[in-house]
């Protein structure tokens, strides 16, 4: 058996069904072995997209995503995808070919120090220069990627190892004395957490991306205790957005209710979230009156940014049921009434007119989906609007680049998610800027004929940057205008063999959306939306969550009222 065959057999043993990749010289032996393998391969048009697909495949299914790339430029193209997966804790195994081990370090053709480059943006990485190491390394790679706090792992394999003859067993023991994730929460800490929650009058649960694998436990806990819940961008779907207890998203573009809840609460129960600055705003103004109970599987996240009064290291699937068992229904009636009043006073508000509004399109999409689809997004205003107006109610169904904020993620992510959940419709909410960063994947999508609706909210702008320039740079609109040189996206889709439509008004939007959902194949809808829309409320960078700019979210009948902390 060759090293390449070892790679394919081990992928098969780990239950890998599909690989996203792109071949090249240094990985050709593996592609040769792939030729005989039952594993499906999706030929991407850019390796970055392959990494995003593998990432989204994991996020949508909980099954590790795998991507392949060749040495040098192929591997460096993976970098953005790996960093994206790293910051959002996504289990990806990336396999790259490298030049033969004798040429390593000689600046050989298509040689790059991929091991060195990807160290800081992976959970772990390996360079394999001896074929005998392959079974152990690959077994460890899958183990590390999928256990504890998930993350990307890269395995760089020199070409001679791929070609070498392997004799021996494919069984390998994981030998990682330094890697023992803590899964079971400490009993004393769970008790202390329960005491703190019980003592609170205004508790608030903040649910993050770590809860995507523990949605049942989150729901059971919230229903049992009656605690109000806010879901971060990464936590969307881990608790149903439609629940009466749900306050929406906190943070920079969070809802008024969620941000006020943070300012006024006396306890935060943080579950699988890491107090990203987009969530906390200025730390010193974040939840000034709250006792912080922080449950996370990664001890390094605890007290990194916000001091935890009660830390609990463990898997939410273990800790939440045990914490719930210690608690009954909490006495939070008055607090819930206060929150309900804010929710009623600050509903999602936007203006409509001749020109389509982004928010309006998203509401039409949500209605058409019947709450039953996967949403992926690009990065920008449309992403924030989608988080607010098109949140999914099921876990693993809102796939977005939160930590790295990677433009170009959404379209490949839609393909990865559609591969992970066959038969389900995926809506890719895209911006006219972002979608062009991996637009070549329309070819991949055409080939696969997946039920993906690409909804471009085309404002002719790098809208999010424009918003900041309007608000914080004296309306000096520097390099954000796209409309004069955007392609005709409908025609572009058609050039790739994909049905595409330009949509200008509400009636047409409704009809096209209905058709697109019914089509069960790729459709691109290019919605021309109002160009100067802003995402409000907004917490300016560096300000506290109690210093929201309400903008058009201010209830028109209400007098302007500063948001004050308790």
């Amino acid at each position, binding site marked *: 058996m060759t090293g390449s065959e070892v790679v394919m057999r081990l992928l098969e043993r780990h239950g890998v069904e599909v690989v996203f990749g792109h071949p090249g010289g240094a990985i050709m032996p593996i592609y040769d072995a792939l030729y005989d393998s039952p594993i499906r391969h999706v030929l991407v048009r850019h390796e970055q997209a392959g990494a995003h697909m593998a990432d989204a495949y994991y996020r949508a299914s909980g099954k590790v995503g795998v991507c392949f790339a060749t040495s040098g430029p192929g591997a460096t193209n993976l970098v953005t995808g790996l960093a994206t997966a790293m910051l959002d804790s996504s289990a990806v195994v990336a396999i790259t070919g490298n030049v033969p081990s004798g040429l390593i370090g000689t600046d050989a053709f298509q040689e790059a120090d991929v*091991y*060195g480059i990807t*160290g*800081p943006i992976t*959970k*772990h990485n390996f*360079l394999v220069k001896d074929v005998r190491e392959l079974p152990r390394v690959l077994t460890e790679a899958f183990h*590390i990627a999928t256990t504890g706090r998930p993350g990307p792992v890269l395995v760089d394999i020199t070409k001679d190892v791929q070609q070498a003859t392997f004799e021996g067993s494919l069984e390998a023991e994981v030998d*990682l*004395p*330094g*890697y*023992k*994730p*803590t899964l079971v*929460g*400490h009993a*004393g*800490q769970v008790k202390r957490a329960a005491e703190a929650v019980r003592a609170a009058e205004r508790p608030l649960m903040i649910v993050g991306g770590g809860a995507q694998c523990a949605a049942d436990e989150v729901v059971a806990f919230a229903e049992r205790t009656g605690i109000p819940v806010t879901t971060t961008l990464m936590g969307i779907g881990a608790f149903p957005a439609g629940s009466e207890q749900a306050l929406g998203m906190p943070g920079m573009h969070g809802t008024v209710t969620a941000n006020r809840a943070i300012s006024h609460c006396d306890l935060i129960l943080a579950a699988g979230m890491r107090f990203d600055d987009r969530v906390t705003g200025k730390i010193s103004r974040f939840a000034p009156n709250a006792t912080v109970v922080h449950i996370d599987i*990664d*001890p*390094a996240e*605890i*007290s*990194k940014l916000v*001091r*935890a*009064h*009660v*830390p*609990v*290291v*463990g898997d939410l699937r273990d800790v939440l049921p045990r914490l719930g068992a210690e608690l009954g229904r909490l006495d939070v009636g008055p607090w819930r009434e206060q929150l309900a009043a804010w929710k009623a006073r600050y509903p999602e508000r936007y203006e409509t007119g001749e020109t389509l509004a982004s928010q309006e399109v998203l509401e039409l999409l949500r209605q058409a989906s019947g709450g039953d689809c996967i949403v992926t997004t690009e990065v920008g205003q449309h992403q924030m609007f989608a988080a607010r107006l098109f949140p999914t109610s099921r876990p693993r169904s809102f796939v977005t680049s939160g930590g790295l904020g990677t433009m170009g993620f959404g379209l490949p992510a839609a393909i990865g998610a559609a591969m992970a959940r066959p038969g389900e419709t995926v809506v890719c909410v895209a911006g006219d800027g972002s979608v062009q960063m991996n637009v070549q994947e329309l070819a991949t999508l055409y080939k696969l004929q997946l039920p993906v609706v690409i909804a471009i909210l085309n404002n002719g702008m790098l809208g999010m940057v424009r918003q900041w320039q309007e608000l914080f740079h004296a309306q000096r609109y520097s390099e954000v205008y796209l409309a004069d040189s955007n392609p005709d996206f409908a025609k572009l889709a058609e050039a790739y063999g994909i049905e595409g439509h330009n949509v200008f008004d509400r009636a047409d939007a409704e009809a096209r959306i209905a058709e697109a959902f019914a089509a069960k194949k790729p459709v691109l809808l290019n919605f021309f939306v109002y160009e100067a829309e802003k995402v409000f409320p907004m917490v300016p960078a560096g300000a506290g969550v109690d210093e929201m700019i309400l903008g058009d979210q201010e209830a028109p009948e209400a007098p302007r009222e500063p948001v004050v902390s308790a």
Partner: protein
Amino acid sequence: MSRHVLSVTVRDQPGVLVRIAGLFARRGFNIESLSVAQSEVPGQSRTTFVVSGDDPTIEQVEKQLNKLIDVISVVDHTHAAAVDRELMLIKVRVRSPEERVEIRQIAQDFRARIVDVSRSALIFELTGDEGKVDAFIEQMRPFGITELIRTGRVALSRTAASTNRASHPTQAPAVARAS
């Protein structure tokens, strides 16, 4: 801000030091000294870091080090009984026979060993804790130090057990520190 001496046991893997150094650089942690050598367990090395920072920073340093897969254990010697030593080689200029006598006398008081003698210089080897090494340097300065090299501190805890045992952050330390 205080200084902490950390013993970090790592697997001998290519690039493990780069990972650690990269982590310190990326997260803005301050290394004052670093020494690395093989430990008594084949395949494992023990590194000693002197890092400075406030308590939350040091807590993050330890947690982030523990997150590295190749790091087997991290022990902070600051609050525990430990011995730490440093080795220095120092070349001192000698201008006259009288000076030579004087320098040798001081060296004797410090138990510094002469490892090389020439007409115009002496090289001493000195082992001790950081304070002793610093003091010897001060004593030699007036004579003229041509060059010196220090290994950085190495440390071992006084407890009977080895610090090599795979101890990953369990609940206990995190809890103790935060409450």
